[in-house]
Every structure is written in structure tokens, then in C-alpha cells.
């Protein structure tokens, strides 16, 4: 944290400059500690006498637990505690849903530890605390679990048949099922001159932040303190308190530096109860740091969905309607955000297009796989892929230009606000508020130099070139409120306290920019505190790209109130910093979500003999309303795009037919590296500031990822146009693409010669 700049401060108070910090590419105040190794991540929190926890996890996808014998483990020197469901007893409660409580989901909640049945590989069965993680792992080896293995459900199709039940007592694998519709979709399809129906599949993958999950819990007899909180610390505090029948004030959640979140980190998981419980039993601090193999089998998975989607078009390319069925694989239990992705997927299937008639059946099913949660752009990545790919397939059928068809169907600026109906059962009617979708498309094409790019399978040095386009719109800024508290100190500095959390986005810098503009003070005058439950009365946390939109608005308004108070002091003749601390507390209530939109364009080259794809150029354009710090906003866009590009070709959590995880290490779970990541050009527009918040800001954290699969699948399809590949399934891995080419070559109706 920088020291307050006292010298400059007096002038700043006098000058009352406004609007000079927001929008400037200011280097982050956070960086120095990370660059010098002084960041304080969860595993860096350590106490004398601290115990180290390890979790024994199920090795079976579905089994009854006959017996667990902990005798040998408990006898091992250095072991402090070995506990199973029998020891935890009535404290072992199901973890409730935080977001998207769709009808029926609450029948499938996960207990904090498996009692008599395990339902996925990785489910907690016992917790060990020992003098070191090494010894704790030695003890894991000594716990004997007698499993009675049963049949496992490994796929959506298998689940839907209900032949084998994941939760026998519930009697079905269908966790939720509901229709959504706007307009009259049957009428739109009746008599349509062209329709095409495809079955799409999005693959299971996950955010895989660089830092795995972890926490340190310390019970001192009256207060439970938990380090490592992030995302939604206040919500999790309430939950943890309820598990222990404690008042919320007896639980402190303390944010540390967090090595990335991407949606999956910071939700309330079984370990978020087990580790504090162990600390309470032992009366000493307990640390648990997830290892990477645990992470891949225990932290939330995401994205696995099948979708039957049908489009009705006129022969000129006008979309008449869209209908389909979405089936999501939720894994073995419904976790805190298990319903978010599937409900958003259905909501965003129609995308930024003038599709008044849309209908979708939404189904979410349980399987014997790791439970799912949200991952950056939940539902959007999938929906944009399904729809944008189907659009290109339709264009191929009808001999239409994909760009022209998008231009024709994008909702026009003058049509705003555009009602989107009620497509999520837990929400009311919605509407896209502002936006110039056409401008986004045109500027993205221009940025990549679309007109000059070789495409449609142009052969250059053995590589076939293709270009793909995908348009999107997405909501952000959820969570109904946010709190901010600002304290003006007598030394002229300010402390800003916010209820949002940070996993690396740079909120310390941006909040200082926002407050600095209001207060006419330099960045160095501010210390920003976030994430911990002690800072503000309540905080809604960080998800749905809400930190700047909602949290930043709260900071802005609080800073404005502070300005008034300081102005009043000045008017009374006071000069310089206040004589005593002045505090402003403010709660900002949102006025509905913001809608970011944009276009991605990908230029690829494909080697048709090896199925290798090179991404030669990639433009990710998004209108984010207002860019608070271009350095950071571009960082979000480029980083999101590369995460999505990697996911589209590489990241995949594979299971075998017995629901055993095959990609349980980083030799098997592959992510983009510096040699695979293309140069991404991020274009951020500020053409349509959000009318719903005082900053005009819209979420900027997810637009980089949400259209990657759509643009890339279309680009690869365009490069391999000669084979007319459907490319209706992700990932576009070497093996999958080679198989698609093999199948196309062996089919009679394709060109007989390779290039």
C-alpha cells in the first residue's frame, strides 16, 4: 500500500479537480507486493501450533459406505484429529443454494461430508488434521473405507433415462425442468421456408485459478475467524454461523490476496465447514490448502451442457424464431450456484438478435460427477456458441453471408429498450436497455481488417484460412446493493471500505480512481479495504461482473457525500485535512442489471492433414459503457479471451463410462500456455453508457470469454468449408477435429481430394 502523499494533498483539496483519474491507464497500487513476493495469499497465513488438514475423498463415483476404520490413522504420531460423518453428526447439514433456486433443485443439496453414500469421485469422506500436510497425507493412507460400489451415472443421456438414480430417495435424476417462452414460437415456425435443428454439446471444464482453494480457521472460544474468504464473504459468514448456531457477529471472514477466482473460487464448499469445525474441535488454528488434484475433482466444474436448437429463417436470412431444449449436467449435487448457468443459458440463447418468438425447455440433471457452479460468463459461453454456430450453419445452407445475416437480425439502436421477456423463473421481465449492436459488429470487423483477410478455406502454404464472427449481449451488475464506507483521516488520507471482494481484478486501484475524482485527491491518498466482513455492515461480494458497476457506484456516491462534508468544512474556513476522522457510510441499491454487448472475430489457419489450428488474429470487442482504467479493462478482456480460446481447444474434464475422472492432473487438464495463446486485440467501446448507475459502467470481466467458442467454431468451420463440418461439439481438440475430418472424408458426398 502506498503511503499517503501529504505534500500533494493540500493542493488536491484546494484544486478540487474532478474526472481526471477515472478513465486513465493508471498502474496498479496492488502490483508492488505481488512483484516482490510480498503478496499474502491464503497459504501464507500461518500460526504457531497450527494443524494441517487433508481430506479423504471418495475414489468411487457411486458407492455405499459400509464401514470406515480410522484406528490406524488416529494412532499415527503427529495426527491430531481424524473425523468422519459419524463424528460430525448433526452439524453435518446440507449446503443451501445461494443463487438461482430453480424449482426442485433443493432436493439435491450436498452435505458437508458423505455419511453413508458417496456420489462422485472426490466427495469428502473424512478429514484429518496433523502436524504437517505430509503427515496428514500419511494418515489418509491409513484410513480404511469399505465401499459397496454401485452403478454410476456418467452422462446426461444416461441420467435422463432415470434407469440408475443418483439420489434414490428423490426418485428422479431431473433436478429441475421448466419451459420458457416469449412471443409465439410455434407460430413463428409454422410455414417457415427454412429450418435447421442441431444437437450441440458444450464440454465440462473449469476456471482452474492458479491458486487452489484454501482456508485457515481459528476458533478462540467465542470468535471464529476464517482467512481465505473471497467472492461472497458475508453470505458465507451467515452460512457458517448457521452451521454452528452462532450469531453472525461470532464469525469473521477475512480476505487474503486471492490467486484468481473465475467464478469457482469463494462459494461455500464442504471444506468451508469442515475446516472451521476441525478448528473448533481442536481449539487450535487449522489450515487446509487444496492440492491441484483435489482441485480438479472437488472444486466446481462448469459448462457441461447439451442443447437441441432449431432455427426458423426466411430465405433472405431473416430469423423467424428459435426454439430448443437445454440439458445441463449438474454433477452429483446442486451446489450454491448450480442453477445459474443453465438458466442464463436459456435466457441468452436468442442473444442480440431480433428474435421475438423464442421457446426453450430447460432441464438440469444430476450425474455421478463433480458438482458444477458458475464459471466466468456462465451460460453465455455456451449459449453464444450454440446460437452463433447454428447461424453459420444456416448461412451455409442458404448461401448467405454470415456477416450480412447478423447485420440484418441484430436489434437496432432505435429499437431499445428491447423487451427480452421473462426467461428466468426466479426473475421478472427484462429488457436490453441501451446499445448499438451494429456499431459493435462493424468496429470489430474493421479492427481485424475483415475485408482483407484470407478466408473460406483459402490455401496458403498448406494452411486453410477461415474467419468466424460471433455477436453477444450479456447482463452484469447483479446483487441488489453494495455498501461503501469512507473515512477521512486527520493526516489527509482516506480509507475506503467496500463489501466487494477481489481475486486479482485491481479494485484497490479503481476504487481509488473513482473516489479520487470525487475528492480531488491523488491515488496515493487512498487505502482500499475489501472483502473482509469487518469492514462494512454487509457486502454482496463479487460475481456477475458487479464490483465496479455496483461497488464502484457505492464508492462514488459515498465519496461525493464526503466531498460535501469537506466542502462544508472548507466553507467554514477550515484548510487542509480534517481535525478529526470523518466517516461516511452509504448503501447503493442497483436499478437493474447492465447489458454489455459486442462481437468477437477470429482468423484461423487449419492444417487439414493434422487438424492443427493456429489462431492468427483475434478481436474481442465489447461496449462496457465506461472504461474506468483502460490498462485493467484491456487486461480483463484479453485475459478472458485467452481463457476462452484455451477452453475451446484444450480445457476438458473427461470422465469414463464409470464416471471416473480421467483428467485429474495438469498433464491431462490442459490450458492455454504462452505458446498457444494468440495475440488478442481487445476493443473496448464506451458508446452506450449504462443508464442504471452513476458511473455509466457495465460489467467488463466476462465479455472477453463469452463469444470465444462461437467465433472460433465458425472460423474453423469456415476454413474447412470444403468439408461442411457441423462442429456442433466442443472442445475443438486435435482429436475431435481429426475425427470430424475423417468422418467427412469417408462420407460419399464430400470432395474426394485433400488439399
Amino acid at each position, binding site marked *: 500500500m502506498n503511503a499517503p502523499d501529504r505534500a500533494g494533498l493540500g493542493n488536491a483539496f484546494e484544486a478540487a479537480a474532478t474526472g481526471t483519474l477515472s478513465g486513465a491507464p493508471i498502474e496498479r497500487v496492488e502490483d508492488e507486493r505481488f512483484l516482490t513476493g510480498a503478496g499474502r495469499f491464503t497459504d501464507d497465513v500461518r500460526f504457531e501450533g497450527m494443524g494441517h488438514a*487433508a481430506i*479423504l*475423498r471418495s*475414489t*468411487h463415483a457411486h458407492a455405499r459406505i459400509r464401514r470406515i476404520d480410522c484406528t490406524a490413522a488416529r494412532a499415527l504420531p503427529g495426527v491430531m484429529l481424524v473425523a468422519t460423518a459419524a463424528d460430525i453428526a448433526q452439524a453435518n447439514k446440507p449446503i443451501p443454494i445461494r443463487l438461482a433456486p430453480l424449482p426442485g433443485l433443493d432436493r439435491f443439496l450436498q452435505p458437508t461430508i458423505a455419511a453413508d453414500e458417496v456420489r462422485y*469421485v*472426490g466427495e469428502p469422506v473424512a478429514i484429518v488434521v496433523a502436524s504437517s*500436510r*505430509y503427515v496428514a*497425507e*500419511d494418515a*489418509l*493412507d491409513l484410513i480404511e473405507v469399505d465401499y459397496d460400489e454401485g452403478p454410476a451415472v456418467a452422462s446426461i443421456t444416461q441420467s435422463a433415462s432415470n434407469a440408475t438414480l443418483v439420489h434414490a430417495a428423490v426418485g428422479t435424476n431431473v433436478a429441475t425442468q421448466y419451459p420458457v417462452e416469449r412471443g409465439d414460437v410455434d407460430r413463428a415456425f409454422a410455414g417457415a421456408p427454412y429450418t435447421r435443428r442441431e444437437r450441440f454439446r458444450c464440454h465440462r471444464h473449469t476456471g482452474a485459478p492458479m491458486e487452489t482453494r484454501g482456508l485457515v480457521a481459528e476458533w478462540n472460544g467465542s470468535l471464529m475467524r476464517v482467512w481465505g474468504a473471497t467472492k461472497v464473504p458475508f453470505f458465507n459468514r451467515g452460512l457458517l454461523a448457521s452451521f454452528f448456531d452462532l450469531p453472525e457477529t461470532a464469525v469473521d471472514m477475512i480476505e487474503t490476496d486471492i490467486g484468481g477466482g473465475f467464478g469457482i473460487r469463494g462459494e461455500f464448499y464442504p471444506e468451508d465447514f469442515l475446516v472451521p469445525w476441525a478448528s473448533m474441535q481442536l481449539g487450535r488454528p487449522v489450515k487446509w490448502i487444496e*492440492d*491441484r*488434484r*483435489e482441485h480438479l*475433482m472437488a472444486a466446481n466444474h462448469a459448462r457441461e451442457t447439451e442443447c437441441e436448437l432449431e432455427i426458423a429463417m426466411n430465405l433472405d436470412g431473416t430469423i423467424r424464431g428459435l426454439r430448443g431444449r437445454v440439458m445441463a449436467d449438474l454433477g452429483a449435487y446442486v451446489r450454491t450456484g448450480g442453477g445459474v448457468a443453465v438458466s442464463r443459458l436459456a435466457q441468452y440463447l436468442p442473444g442480440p438478435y431480433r428474435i421475438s418468438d423464442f421457446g426453450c425447455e430447460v432441464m438440469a440433471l444430476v450425474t455421478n460427477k463433480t458438482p458444477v457452479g458458475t464459471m466466468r460468463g456462465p451460460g453465455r459461453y455456451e449459449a453464444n456458441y450454440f446460437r452463433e454456430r447454428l447461424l453459420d450453419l444456416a448461412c451455409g445452407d442458404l448461401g448467405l453471408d454470415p456477416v450480412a445475416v447478423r447485420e440484418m437480425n441484430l436489434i437496432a439502436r432505435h429499437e431499445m429498450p428491447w423487451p427480452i421477456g421473462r426467461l428466468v423463473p426466479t426473475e421478472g421481465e427484462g429488457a436490453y436497455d441501451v446499445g448499438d449492436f451494429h456499431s459493435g459488429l462493424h468496429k470489430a470487423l474493421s479492427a481485424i481488417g475483415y475485408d482483407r483477410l484470407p478466408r473460406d478455406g483459402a490455401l496458403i*502454404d*498448406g*494452411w486453410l484460412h477461415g474467419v468466424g464472427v460471433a455477436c453477444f449481449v450479456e447482463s452484469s451488475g447483479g446483487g441488489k446493493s453494495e455498501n461503501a464506507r469512507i473515512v477521512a483521516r486527520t493526516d489527509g488520507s482516506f480509507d475506503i471500505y467496500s463489501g466487494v471482494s477481489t481475486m486479482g481484478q485491481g479494485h484497490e486501484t479503481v476504487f481509488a480512481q473513482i473516489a479520487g475524482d470525487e475528492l480531488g485527491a491523488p491515488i496515493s491518498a487512498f487505502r482500499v479495504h475489501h472483502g473482509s466482513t469487518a469492514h462494512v455492515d454487509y457486502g454482496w461480494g463479487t460475481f456477475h461482473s458487479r464490483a465496479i458497476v455496483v461497488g464502484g457506484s457505492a464508492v462514488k456516491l459515498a465519496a461525493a457525500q464526503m466531498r460535501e462534508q469537506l466542502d462544508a468544512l472548507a466553507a467554514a474556513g477550515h484548510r487542509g485535512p480534517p481535525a478529526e476522522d470523518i466517516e461516511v457510510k452509504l448503501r447503493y441499491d442497483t436499478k437493474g442489471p447492465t447489458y454489455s454487448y459486442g462481437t468477437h472475430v477470429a482468423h484461423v489457419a487449419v*492444417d487439414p*492433414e*493434422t*487438424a*492443427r489450428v493456429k489462431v492468427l488474429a483475434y478481436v474481442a470487442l465489447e461496449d462496457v459503457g465506461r472504461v474506468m482504467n483502460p490498462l485493467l479493462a484491456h487486461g480483463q478482456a484479453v485475459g478472458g479471451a485467452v481463457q476462452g480460446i484455451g477452453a475451446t481447444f*484444450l480445457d476438458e474434464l*473427461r470422465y*469414463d463410462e464409470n464416471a*471416473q*475422472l*480421467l*483428467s*485429474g*492432473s*495438469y*498433464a*491431462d487438464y*490442459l490450458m*492455454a*500456455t504462452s*505458446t*498457444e495463446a494468440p495475440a488478442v486485440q481487445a476493443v473496448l467501446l464506451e458508446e452506450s453508457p449504462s443508464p442504471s448507475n452513476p458511473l455509466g459502467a457495465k460489467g467488463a470481466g466476462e465479455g472477453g470469454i463469452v463469444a470465444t467458442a462461437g467465433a472460433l467454431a465458425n472460423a474453423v468451420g469456415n476454413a474447412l468449408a470444403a468439408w461442411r463440418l457441423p462442429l456442433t461439439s466442443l472442445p475443438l*481438440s*486435435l*482429436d475431435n477435429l*481429426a*475425427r470430424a475430418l*475423417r468422418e467427412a472424408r469417408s462420407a460419399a458426398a464430400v470432395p474426394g481430394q485433400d488439399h
Partner: protein
Amino acid sequence: MAAMAFMHYLPNGKVCTIPVMKPAPLDILPATSVAHALSLLGEHGDQARLIAGGQSLMPILAMRLAAPAILIDINGIADLRGIRLEADGSVLIGALTRHRDLERSPLLAERLPLIAAAMPWIAHVQIRNRGTLGGSLSHADPAAELPALCIALCATIELHSPRGVRQIAADDFFQGVFATARADDELLTAVRVPATTPAQRWAFIELARRHGDFALCGIALTADCSPTGAVTQARIVVFGVSDCPRRLPHLESAIVGSAPSPASIDQAMQSLDTVEARSDHHASSEYRLELLATLARRALRQAFGFDERTAP
């Protein structure tokens, strides 16, 4: 190459052991000489394993897929590190020579450009800074580059044991997945690569899911030619496709005897050997065989100067 393709060779391709990431208790005994290492091996038998660079062994220990009570650390045996040109023109490479030393050796760049060209394909710089030639050969991952290079270069492998020293041709050393001709009491000490002519043709080509990952398919190739350009002898080695690196004798025969042309290479490809390809979740056997045909043809074209493209 990444550190851990061994995952793929576990029974049924599964990893269903309890997830752990810290090694089981063990002791480390540093060996100071070859004789010392052999005596420690003899003394501790099944209890002990040799560790050199450890870049493949460490993840195995961390996941407790192996839990030897004793590691005999041979890193301190200075005699085993280094690259030396012998009087007969052959090159002797000590088993403890690290990948980075191979990569940056001016001698290898001049004498054995195939090795120099292949080294950057092996894993990542941090692994190459530590991994050793002998460790890679002893580990015998089917998708590793160095075993294939040794076969393509007609190398012999030197093994010491209490029974003495023996030399074994690289052709005969690799016997299957993680299986070699090395006996439990033997220490791999050196690799000898016979002299090559400056006119020797060579090519190295591989395709992995990402740069640095284990190859889904790779080809290492050498060919000697007469003054007229006719191929007199060829060694074409495929790795990553089956259980260990294998020569392609039919393809080799088809290319020997005349000066290659693009047409004759295509013709020779008709004789491509039948190889049993493995399947895993990174690549099916069908895909691996397609890559074999494509990369073998490209390697031949590259070796004889007909290549119009640089990357696989």
C-alpha cells in the same frame, strides 16, 4: 513432454488413488561415484530407487504412485556429466548431462544437429535445466524424444553393474511402456553416438497438444547418402504412437537405394509400416496413425529439402 504422461499408462487409464501431493517418508542417500551408487543399489535392493534430475520421478513420488524408502541420488557423480568427442569421431555423452547442456552444446550442434534441433521440443526450460539424458532413457516414456533420438542416431547405451560394464544398442534397449533392458542392479552411465558424416540427412518433427507436451506422434530420422545422393541407409523412428519408440523398417527400405524426390517419397509412403497405436483421451489410435503417415512423409520431405512448410 510434460512431467507426467505416466498417468496415461495406469491400468485402464485411470487415476483413482486418493489425491495426495506430498511424497511418503523417504531417505536420500547421495552416491559419490558409480561404484558407490552400485553398492548402495546392491545394499538396499527393492527398497531403493535411483534419482537423477527427478523431473519424471518427483510427480510419481508426490502422488505416491511409488513410495521407495530410499532414493539414491546420483547427481553428485561428476564423472557422469559431460559431452566428449572421442578419437574415432563418436560422441560420448554422460548420463547425468542435463537436457539444457545437450541443447546448448556447440559440439552437438555441429556434430549431431538432430539432437540440437529436437531439444527445444522437450518440455519446458525449467524441466530441461534439471532433467538428464540418463533419466529420460531409463524412464522410457513412450512419447519421450531422447529415446527416439538415440535409436535414430544408432547410439549405444552403457550400463554398469557389479557384474561389469555392458553396451547395448538403443534399438534393443527400449522394450515397452517404462520398460527397458536395464536390470535392477544396473546404472545407466553413458550414451555413445557413432560418428556421422556431415552429409547425413536428418529430420525431427513432432506434434503435441501444446508446445512442450508429450508428443502424440513424432518422427526422428537420419539417412546416409552416397555422393550421387542415393540413400544408402536410413533410420526412421516413430515415437508417441505405440508402447515405445520404433523404427519403421519397411519405410526405411523403401527410401534406400535412390536419390529421393517428392514423388519417390510419396511412393515410399505406400510401404509405411503397420504400427500398433495406442489410444488415450488426448488422441485416438486412428488419429495417431494419421499423424504417423503425415509426419513421416513430412519428415522425409524435410530431410531431403522438399519441405514447403515448417511446422507440423
